[in-house]
């Protein structure tokens, strides 16, 4: 009997709904609100000060799924934003211009903006725009770029110094003082959730895979990115893990019959998520691993929050998001995925909005094709702007790619 079926999907929705519900009331209750980014976020520190957290990226993503992005983007373009800049930003600015009214009710105004420069430089521009709009303090946490395995001690020290400074600012904004004890507890819970999350992701190493490491993982990743440090988050991943184990025992997977296993690089086109997934489902494709669920943080190879070193581990985490890694390390990561998750091909989804992801993708494609002899499919659309999605064009590309893979496979047999 299936006890846990769809727990991962449904519980995640409930958690987010509750979280958004709390947010809507934050201003009224005069509780402090901070906006921050997903990539390498420092939510443990902010939670320790009792901030409600708003993630504009997640808001943009939700608008995308709910097919509300177009209107907000249009609004921002009417305010002068170029059609060539990141759609996430425009979506979010559009919401701000609409006074915070959006499909999920009302967004509270921020008391503090915390920008981690790690995800992309666009982050900086984004929060500068919001700081102007909301006239509230903006803290830019300058996160050095990660080039090698070993992050220089000076880099970590610099981030820790800034975190301490941020802490002072939080104190000023909230009028509360920090309890190191509480911070350690938050960090401990984060680490626990991180362990479980990695176990969930690694379930996809099985053949057939019980989960889709992209199309499902991008939903399952929500709590680890936005609710880390809470007992609910830990409980959630325990549940998901059980669901996956149950799927294995019942022989269920994300698709009826797994024919191809791929690694996917790039973000999903949120406004056309279903249609996009269907293009692959029709061919029996499971994405066994993908880079997008690692934008928040990369835990696959041991990086954890650490209650023994709360500040240093928060700092290390801040640097450890996918888009803050250099290209060579990212490519190495995809290589590892291909090997460890037994993938047949690499799919690269280039999106117009996000140069942080897309610039260099053609190079990655070439690397895999020429050096690794791994088939690689290159497709383009956008993660936020519904106007850049052409189903007919994408379908031709996806179909042709798997036709060829199928052909090659049957020729080999």
């Amino acid at each position, binding site marked *: 009997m299936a006890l846990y079926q769809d727990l991962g999907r449904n519980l995640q929705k409930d958690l987010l709904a509750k979280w958004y519900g709390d947010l809507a009331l934050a201003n009224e209750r005069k509780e402090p609100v901070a906006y921050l980014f997903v990539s390498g976020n420092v939510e443990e520190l902010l939670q320790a000060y009792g901030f409600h957290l708003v993630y504009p990226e997640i808001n943009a993503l939700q608008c995308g799924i709910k097919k509300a992005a177009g209107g907000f983007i249009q609004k921002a373009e009417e305010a002068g934003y170029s059609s060539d800049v990141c759609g996430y930003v425009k979506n979010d600015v559009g919401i701000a211009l609409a006074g915070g009214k959006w499909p999920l009710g009302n967004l509270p105004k921020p008391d503090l903006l915390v920008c981690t420069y790690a995800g992309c430089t666009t982050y900086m521009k984004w929060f500068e725009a919001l700081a102007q709009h909301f006239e509230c303090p903006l803290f830019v946490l300058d996160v050095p770029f990660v080039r090698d395995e070993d992050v220089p001690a000076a880099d970590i020290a610099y981030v820790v110094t800034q975190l301490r400074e941020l802490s002072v600012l939080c104190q000023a904004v909230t009028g509360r003082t920090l309890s190191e004890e509480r911070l350690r507890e938050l960090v401990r819970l984060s680490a626990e959730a991180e362990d479980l999350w990695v176990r969930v992701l690694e379930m996809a190493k099985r053949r057939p895979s019980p989960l889709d490491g992209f199309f499902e993982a991008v939903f399952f990743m929500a709590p680890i990115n936005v609710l880390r440090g809470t007992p609910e988050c830990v409980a959630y991943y325990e549940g998901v893990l059980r669901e996956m184990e149950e799927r294995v025992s019942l022989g269920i997977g994300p698709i009826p019959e797994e024919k191809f296993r791929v690694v996917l690089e790039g973000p999903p086109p949120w406004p056309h998520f279903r249609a996009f997934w269907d293009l692959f489902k029709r061919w029996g494709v499971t994405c066994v691993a993908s880079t997008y669920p690692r934008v928040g943080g990369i835990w696959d190879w041991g990086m954890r929050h650490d209650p023994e070193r709360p500040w240093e581990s928060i700092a290390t985490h801040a640097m450890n998001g996918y888009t803050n890694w250099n290209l060579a390390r990212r490519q190495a990561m995809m290589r590892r995925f291909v090997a460890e998750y037994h993938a047949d091909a690499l799919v690269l989804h*280039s999106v*117009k909005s996000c140069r942080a992801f897309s610039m260099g993708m053609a190079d990655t494609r070439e690397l895999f094709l020429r050096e690794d002899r791994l088939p690689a499919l*290159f497709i383009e659309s956008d993660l936020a702007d519904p106007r850049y999605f052409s189903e007919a064009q994408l379908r031709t590309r996806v179909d042709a790619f798997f*036709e*060829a893979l199928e052909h090659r496979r049957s020729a080999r047999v």
Partner: protein
Amino acid sequence: MIVAGIDVGSTATKGVLLHADGRILGRALVPTGANVVRAAERAFQEALRTAGIEDWEVCFIVGTGYGRYKVQFGHAQITEISCHAKGAQFLMPGTRTVLDIGGQDTKAIKVGEAGEVLDFCMNDKCAAGTGRFLEAAAGVLGLDLAEIGDVSLRSRDPLRVTNVCTVFVESEIVSHLAKGRKVEDILRGVHNAIAARSLALLRRVGYEPGLAFTGGVSRNRGMVRALEERLGSPVHASEDSPFMGAIGAALYARERAEHAAAPGKA
């Protein structure tokens, strides 16, 4: 045994009838127009007529092209990418790379010895530098699509055309005309610009000499020359090139039909 391939493109719909022994019995090309379903039927009927064959004689039909799912009388659908590769390797053995320039997209395909697709790339979401671009250019210059290629070959001093956006090419051309540039030089510039874009795609799949040029634009001799100059190696285009998608589809139809007829297989 006779099979058929129908290639429903964004601009033109092509139909080809193929005999089991590999002979092409009939071909047809009709504008796709607004009614895609009807275009597919018309291309099929027209091909039957040129071959003098009745429709019941055709045992397997494969639809391809962007309107492949609209070939309602077809038995299977295969993308035009697979079909162009298949057709090119069949008619021009030794082909390593295929360049298909159609009405609104351009594809570079790397092909294996059996006509299988090893890798491919298409122009991005932007329609710049496709057949439609040439149509627009011909339109502003008041020339026929069929003659612009030849006119471009007369150029001594080709222009540098920088904007390959189909929407803007018109104003760019008008401004060059206004500056007194020769029509052939402008056209040559336009052809060179498309050749450059195509080359970028070819490089993505890893270009090797042995290029089969297919799709409607392969009729354009100016384009063939511009590509040859840019690549520094010969480009193969023939009468059949514009029909390559349909030919490939027919070849797939033949495979399927033989497969189905083979003893011991359902």
